[in-house]
């Protein structure tokens, strides 16, 4: 039987009410039932029941799911779309060329080549990879202290470590300020999220198991929403997996952070689907940033930006459509005060960066923890400036 791995009870729990439709990015750009969660569930059920054959059309409908899971919180019957689509993607990937594509694009696109290509202007502007440093800075981690509140582990991951090392630095800085000893996970340790997203189930579970083995019982701080969501789903054995903003938010009440004065800058917060729909912790970012900046939400009910693992590469045309819609929604809250767009997921950051309109030159796309570090850091500079004054006098 095709799609035998899907639980028939999960399929039966959908009453086809259609409340998921507006929360699905592919439905939003096409208006086609075959590009909606309701439609995909029906297709899986129909193929599984032998009503319709598994043809290219069905394959395309199912593969075109971004897996943003925007439909999960929207569903009043709590249909487990995630449990339906995951085995389907796995099954389709094992019989398609997609696997090869993902390998080629993601794991052979070595960072060094990317960096070189960017310098030589060989990289297409729309390729969702941020400007990459040719030489990586080493992460500066303060020495552990006994007086501190405890130890946390910063999960470095692969993409974050290679392309967004400044975010790791900011994370370490803020966690240290909160009074934690920070330990780094092994460089190059991958959680397998991208593999799982692409339906390459076996290597994914091996990678995830490796993380579990190395860090069982620890508090794992993750600053990539995608990795966090994946690890959280397979968290058994791990002490705790927590998004960095959620962690900061939790410790604010008892924190030694001297907040100082607020900045006049305005931040538009992009909620990563992994935070909003899977971890359910996106509000932490708003809460924390609100201490330092004026925060604006994007008025589109947290619709996906189209990054979705390798989706932006795999389904470039759809991803472009989806992000254009996102950009329009962002545009509607922009004014001269807005300096930053914050995104807690490297995929989203890359996607937004690659498709940002030319008129957004004054805007920087940053990780929210960088903004926190910056707010605290400027405080430092402020103090040292004062000290300098004092020295001179």
């Amino acid at each position, binding site marked *: 039987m095709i799609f035998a791995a899907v639980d028939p009870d999960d399929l*039966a*729990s*959908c*009453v*086809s*009410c*259609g*409340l*998921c*439709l*507006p929360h699905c990015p592919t439905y939003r750009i*096409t*208006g*086609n*039932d*075959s590009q909606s969660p309701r*439609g995909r569930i*029906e*297709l899986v059920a*129909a193929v599984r029941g032998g*009503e*319709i*054959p598994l*043809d290219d*059309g*069905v394959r395309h*409908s199912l593969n075109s799911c971004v897996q943003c899971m925007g439909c999960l919180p929207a*569903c*009043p*019957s*709590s*249909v487990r779309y995630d449990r339906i689509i995951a085995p389907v993607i796995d099954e389709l990937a094992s019989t398609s060329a997609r696997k090869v594509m993902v390998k080629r694009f993601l794991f052979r696109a070595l960072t060094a080549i990317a960096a070189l290509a960017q310098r030589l202007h060989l990289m297409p502007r729309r390729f969702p990879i941020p400007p990459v440093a040719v030489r990586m800075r080493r992460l500066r981690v303060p020495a552990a202290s006994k007086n501190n509140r405890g130890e946390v582990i910063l999960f470095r991951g692969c993409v974050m470590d290679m392309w967004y090392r400044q975010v790791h630095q900011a994370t370490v800085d803020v966690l240290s300020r909160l009074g934690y000893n920070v330990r780094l996970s092994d460089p190059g340790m991958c959680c397998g999220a991208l593999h799982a997203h692409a339906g390459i189930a076996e290597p994914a579970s091996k990678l995830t198991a490796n993380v579990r083995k190395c860090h069982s019982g620890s508090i794992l701080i993750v600053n990539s929403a995608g990795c966090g969501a994946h690890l959280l789903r397979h968290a058994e054995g791990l002490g705790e997996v927590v998004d960095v903003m959620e962690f900061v938010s939790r410790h604010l009440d008892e924190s030694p952070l001297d907040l100082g004065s607020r900045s006049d800058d305005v931040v538009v917060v992009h909620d990563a689907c992994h935070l909003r729909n899977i971890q359910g912790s996106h509000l932490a970012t708003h809460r924390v940033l609100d201490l330092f900046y004026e925060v604006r939400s994007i*008025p589109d009910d947290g619709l996906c930006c189209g990054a979705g693992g390798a989706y932006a590469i795999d389904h470039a045309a759809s991803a472009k459509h989806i992000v254009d819609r996102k950009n329009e929604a962002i545009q509607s809250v922009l004014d001269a005060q807005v300096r930053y767009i914050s995104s807690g997921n490297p995929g989203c950051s890359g996607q937004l960066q690659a498709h940002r309109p030319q008129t957004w030159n004054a805007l920087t796309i940053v990780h929210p923890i960088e903004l926190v570090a910056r707010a605290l850091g400027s405080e430092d500079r402020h103090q040292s400036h004062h000290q300098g004054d004092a020295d001179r006098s």
Partner: protein
Amino acid sequence: MARRRLSKKLEGSAIGIARHELHLVSRDASNIEGNASGWVKPANVEEVVTILRDCHARRIPFVARGAGTGLAGGAVPTMGSIVISMMGMNRIRSVDADGRFAWVEPGVLNADLSRAVARHGLHFAPDPSSQQSCTIGGNVANNSGGPHCLSTGVTSAHVLAIEAVLSDGSVVTLDQESSPFDLRGAFIGSEGMFGIATAIKVRLTQNAPHHATVVVGFPTIDGGARAVSAIIAAGIVPSALEMMDAPITRAVESYVHAGFPLDVGALLIIEVDGLPHGVEADIDSCLTICRQHEASYIRRAQTDAERAIIWKGRKTAFGAIARIKPNYYLHDTVVPRRRLAEVLGKIGHIAAAENLQVMNVFHAGDGNLHPLLLFDRREEGIMPGECYPESTVLVSRSVTSCRSCSTKPALPRSRSFGEPSILRVWRIPARCCRLGRDVEIRSPRPRALGCEDSDMTRSKGLSSGVLRFEPDELIVTVRAGTTMEELASVLGSKRQRLRIPAIGTVGGALATRRNGPFPSDNFALPNIVLKIHAVDGSGNAFVAGGGTVKNVSGFDLVKLLVGSWGTLATITEATLRTEPIPGCSRWFVGAGDVGALYRPALVAPCRNGWCVNLEGHPDDVAQQAALLENYDEIAPPAALEMIELFSIAESPPERLEMTPAIFDICRRLKSEFDPDNTLSPLLSARWGLA
């Protein structure tokens, strides 16, 4: 074959025949499955015209589809129809914030429209439970309501004009001005059988500055239902009055976590919105009544977020059903409010006897019940050869046995046309509505009410008198010959009224759509007319509409007759929706901006500039009046003074500029209702209809 020829004509939007797509467009949120033979997604009016012309020429049936969230199978294609998805036309064409209207395409989602105009402090009032997903086009096709239509009215009260493509491919604009008959009104709720709307001019409503949203728990459904009746009977019309029974509350609560109490028999959501003093006074009265009916739980939403989550709970109720059983059959019916408890009891009784699981979530304020019958289609024997369980018929019978007047059975109807051509479809209303032959008036040559000698006040020998006034239901049934003055005094005795001026007879007011200076909103003609008894040109008596407070199913013949100046039929009797007289009503005349006022009862040009009428709680009216600069208060004008003050024309339009397509429809309507031109013959001739 036909498909191939069709697709050739459509560059860029070829007919899709992929198996999986057809599988999906053959179903919607109902239990009904169809069989589409193709689907197409036009991007503009021209493409719709091309498609419909081809379908017409080749006699291919078609069905328009929006988001497919309908629960009555409205988007399900039968007879191998082609599905025309309107999701490719989803632009908001223009917004006029000052004029408070917008032109939108049919694929715009209901909630998206309100979101888009929120920065102007406006929204689109009809709010069906599926509002986040459903389209405006679908709302028009189904004349959708929603919790808040209790005070603001259903879709037809919020659609000003429709640009539609008829099945022969002709493009028409339907409104209340450009034709002698309200084709706009007849189109709304016709479930796509008259054509496809390609643009809709919607009325936008000002957002309320103040809300009170309260969740009230009752030990029994019966107590809740009686409280609802009592609230309306006390002359309070909240903006929403919704009820959920205990099982559905439990299902919803486990999804939204709105803090709904789980130990009550029924949950009532009461919302009052508007200006602060009126809102607080009304909600206090509501809660006093609830306490008198032994409410066991009362909680008022303290923040907007809390209010939002209460509504999220109510509006996701149908979807949350799958927590209990994977399928449900929805019955949608309106019963008199005072019989709510009785009908619910009966439904419960039948359900118990038949061993069925039934849940109730409904618009209590309208008496609009939604008994949901739960089942699992995988169970043996549950689907006896049909796409709905046989036992549902029992539930429907229980509902109809209570003399409900307006039921919307969710059974597949032939809604695709092409086979019987559009020419015939426009004739359906007259035929299918000739039911009540026992109405007292039968005359081979009845005289018209809206006659051409501009004397609207004579009653032409029709019998008069108020037949039935049900103040608790806000309904009055009256003979057409009754003077509006007499009606007003009967209603006034119970502190109720009709907003339209008390001039002439009821029949005359209806025939000429005499709203005076008032806009044709929810409290004016034709929207207050629920049911009509009439006699057509051949002397056949018929009944149109239904005598319950909300009434949206079937072809809206009432809209066609109201304002037709007696050229189609003679109205003999009408059931009208009344409203409580507000605490205070003040009139002002002057000049200057009135944009800051909140939903004034009237703003209209008059002899001496602009005239403003403010109504509501005295303190609110006083505050609003303070916003009026350069305005002087005047005594409330008597009905006849209004004619003078607003220079109301008392004669039918001399000429009507009709496009050929509209003219064609009107002429066919005339010849169907009155083939011998016995009704208002001169006027009909002047308009070229005879």
